């Protein structure tokens, strides 16, 4: 295979992505016990954005069918639980939609049980619910899933620990730098106060993980609606968190 020498570099310029402050949780967060042996101890090394970081996998169309966005229609019968629509937009911090980007979600069933061999929570599995969905955002960055409201479940992080109800979201954006895995929560969950994963995020940013009940998104006689916009890092250092900026 021919390997061409790289072009001379001095003419090459790239626009880096912003570096968020006060948004993401620290890796080392003692209240979440699983961090103890897994969070790196040495400082992270600053990686200026070069070609590998400003590009990324543009995947999806061949991996997604329309049926993948309806988690209530993947089996013979319908799953137990409250049907919901979860929809919103994927934007960058400059307010630009992120179109054609792959979103993958996974969640437990209405009783708080994941369809996973390691989940030993003694709530029943639902033969009609797998809990996995995917879709591509449209040209305006919009996405939409139909699913059931996930249950809360106990875990062993601390005595009588319970996870607030949540749906896991995985997003690619358009660059390695924009890759994001997060969790979407539901408004008014009484379990937030005792959850170290939710509370690992700086206080001012926690509400960004909570969806909003949206009557306009409900499907009458069918499903409740929750709206949640997801915001990925944008390009350029100056776009970050301008108060009352344009959209």
């Amino acid at each position: 295979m021919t390997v061409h020498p790289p072009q001379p570099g001095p003419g090459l310029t790239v626009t880096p992505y912003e570096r968020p402050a006060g948004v993401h949780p620290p890796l080392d967060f003692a209240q979440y016990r699983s961090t103890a042996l897994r969070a790196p101890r040495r400082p992270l090394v600053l990686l200026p954005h070069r070609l590998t970081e400003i590009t990324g996998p543009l995947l999806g169309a061949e991996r997604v069918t329309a049926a993948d966005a309806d988690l209530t229609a993947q089996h013979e019968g319908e799953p137990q639980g409250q049907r919901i629509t979860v929809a919103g937009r994927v934007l960058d911090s400059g307010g630009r939609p992120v179109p054609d980007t792959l979103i993958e979600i996974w969640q437990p069933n209405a009783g708080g049980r994941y369809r996973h061999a390691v989940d030993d929570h003694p709530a029943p599995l639902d033969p009609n619910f797998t809990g996995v969905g995917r879709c591509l955002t449209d040209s305006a960055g919009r996405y939409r899933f139909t699913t059931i409201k996930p249950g809360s479940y106990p875990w062993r992080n601390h005595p009588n620990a319970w996870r607030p109800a949540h749906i896991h979201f995985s997003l690619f954006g358009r660059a390695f730098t924009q890759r994001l895995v997060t969790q979407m929560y539901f408004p008014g969950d009484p379990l937030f106060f005792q959850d170290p994963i939710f509370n690992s995020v700086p206080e001012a940013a926690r509400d960004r993980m909570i969806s909003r009940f949206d009557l306009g998104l409900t499907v009458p006689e069918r499903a409740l609606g929750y709206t949640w916009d997801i915001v990925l890092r944008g390009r350029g250092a100056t776009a970050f968190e301008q108060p009352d900026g344009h959209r």
Partner: protein
Amino acid sequence: MTPRLTPSQTVGPFLAIGLPWRDGPFVVPEGTDGAITITGRVLDGAGDPVPDALVETWQADPDGRFAHPDDPRGAAGRGFRGFGRCPTGPDGSYRIVTLKPGALPSPGGGTEAPHLDVSVFARGLLDRVVTRVYFPDEGPANEADPVLASIGDPAWAATLVARPGPDPARLRFDIHLQGDQETVFFDV
């Protein structure tokens, strides 16, 4: 109001129901001319395997090009996916089958040695951790690489160079999240 960035949260222990793809580890199909395999284990601070992690890779093609419109040199054709994804097994192991990437021009001058960007997700990681794989047969290029040079400590930087196996097409890259051999992780 300007949209506010969404925070990261851990993938948790059950990512295996949602994220693995059947073809994930195969950036190129097995048996592709020139294919290499990168294998290794993800290990925690006690040296124990991490059996519930996900390793993702992103890289240039063998000519040092990306199938992406934001590459200022122009996008390469869509022939090479560039992306690999593999969940770890019970022994913490993963593997990625791919082609060795080419070197890259670095903005402002200089050259980046062939490398893969790597993300690791797992229960206990509230955000992904990002590292890089470099190649053991690229000594002079690695010496000149601006990212390896920025690490300062050559012994630590060496954690980013894969180890050669008896078969030159099989490289070993262990990822130590913590401990004496802790891998270099980047603030990306």
